[in-house]
């Protein structure tokens, strides 16, 4: 079950792209970036006019309103917005855990893995068993599981901790195990719901590097929800700004990749500042 071979068509001009050019980053509109790799990439996730309402009648709550978004294979897209902007709803829809009220969500049969702010590991299983269960759920034969489990834990640099239970690991290590578990599903698309939100800045910084390394080793498409603008500027190929209640896409920024970024580099700071300004504007609009 692999994706259809649709080609990415650059979306219509969005205001955010020019804002970034002003920030000194040679931003371009849409998916095509400097080396042009987006041009011949397939679409991993396509949302077409997706709306989601909870409940019915006058008391119903519109969480997402007409969201259209395409994400190319291997692209790292950060979704940012104030709380209640429907970020988590969006991920649930892509993960297939929920159905949209209107519109379409397509992943072309790609495997979708989901990571939460909490590691959500099964506390009665060791780190290794947690990963192995995901392999088992995927239908990997028993004989292959131990080797694959070891390999996955090695990928997140926890090879020595397979026998530890979640409560014996630190918060960052638990998130690494959760990452290994998501990778065990052989996911093409990794949905991450503020995965590092509960970690301290130093640990988070390390995990950013790890995530970047893992993404480059496997062609992973990532939809990364965060409310941390620096994190978004540090990681994303593209940053999507969502408005609050209902969630709508208000701005889209394309950040060209020029080697590894540092969270404390001037470029990241500059982009983060712009994102913050735009978010403030949005909050102000809501507040008045």
């Amino acid at each position, binding site marked *: 079950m692999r994706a259809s071979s649709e080609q990415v068509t650059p979306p219509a001009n969005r205001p955010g792209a020019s804002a970034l050019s002003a920030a000194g980053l040679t931003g371009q509109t849409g998916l095509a970036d400097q080396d042009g790799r987006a041009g011949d990439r397939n679409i991993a996730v396509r949302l077409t006019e997706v709306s989601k309402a909870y409940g019915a009648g006058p008391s119903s709550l519109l969480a997402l309103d007409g969201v259209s978004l395409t994400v190319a294979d291997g692209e790292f897209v950060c979704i940012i917005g104030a709380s209640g902007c429907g970020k988590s709803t969006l991920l649930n829809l892509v993960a297939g855990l929920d159905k949209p009220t209107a519109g379409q969500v397509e992943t072309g049969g790609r495997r979708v893995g989901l990571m939460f702010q909490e590691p959500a590991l*099964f506390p009665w299983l060791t780190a290794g068993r947690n990963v192995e269960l995901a392999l088992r759920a995927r239908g990997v034969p028993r004989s292959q599981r131990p080797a694959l489990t070891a390999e996955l834990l090695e990928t997140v640099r926890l090879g020595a901790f397979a026998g530890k239970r979640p409560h014996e690991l*630190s918060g960052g290590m638990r998130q690494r195990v959760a990452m290994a578990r998501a990778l065990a599903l052989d996911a093409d698309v990794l949905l991450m719901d503020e995965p590092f939100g509960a970690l301290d800045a130093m640990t988070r910084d*390390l995990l950013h590097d790890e995530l970047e390394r893992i993404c480059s080793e496997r062609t992973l498409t990532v939809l990364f929800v965060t409310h941390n603008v620096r994190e978004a500027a540090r990681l994303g190929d593209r940053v999507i700004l969502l408005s609050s209640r209902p969630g709508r896409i208000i701005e889209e920024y394309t950040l060209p990749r020029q080697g590894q970024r540092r969270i404390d580099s001037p470029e990241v700071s500059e982009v983060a500042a712009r994102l913050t300004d735009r978010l403030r504007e949005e909050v102000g609009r809501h507040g008045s």
Partner: protein
Amino acid sequence: MVADQALRGLDSLELPPDQRAQVPGRRGRKAWAAAWPKLLAVALVLGVWELVTLTGWKKLVLKGPGPVFSDLWQQMQHGALWATIGWTMRSALIGYLVALVIGSVVGILVARIGPLRAGVGSIITGLQTMPSVVWAPFAIILFGENNSAILFVVILGAGPAIANGLINGVDYTPPLLLRAGKTMGLRGITLYRFLILPASLPAYLAGLKQGWAFAWRSLMAAELFIAIIGQVSIGQQLVADQDLSDFTGASSVMIVIFVIGIIVDTVFTKADVSLRRRRGLLDPAAAN
């Protein structure tokens, strides 16, 4: 446990120390720390009992701890007491095991099937609140004065508690783990086998413990009510002592009932503590 130092964020400070330092004599001191309050409590009870005896209250029937324990000691030298205990424990075990099977099957069915939940769920709760001794006359009418009647009362006493424990466990499966499990592709039976049932274990164990308490009470009540010809049970021994106004005999039996209750409760408590320790649900400070 040497992790790659470069990978360590601040969160590595959260890691529990690898091995608890084994101080020589720690085990003995720990055992003493746990034992002395209990010994003190027993000594207090015996002291009050002795004092009441010394006041001469109910002088004709009341005997002090000395005569009672020497009577118990005498009885323990003979096979009769052990045969009585053996018979009662056999009924307890059979009744409890049947209740365990029926309670677990009903529990899982009620937890899974919506309409059953609405109907049978409230009946189970109702049954649990009924003093099981009221089933004794009903059981005698149904089965006659035999062991089936006794088992019937025990099963009706313990079954609902066990079923309710399981239902509660299923209900309180953390939603986040359910989301994680569903993302992994666990559905239907596999979802129960790998996620919901293991997650229910603590509540189920609490139900089993409560079920035992109910089974033991029901059994004592049933044995007081139901005399089986040619078979002496603990309950019937108590009835015989009552008929003879034998204070020391009755007290010995009461002590036996008390001690059996404590022994079994200790087993359940140990199981509970070890389960919680494995899942990291135990406050490490309290565990030491």
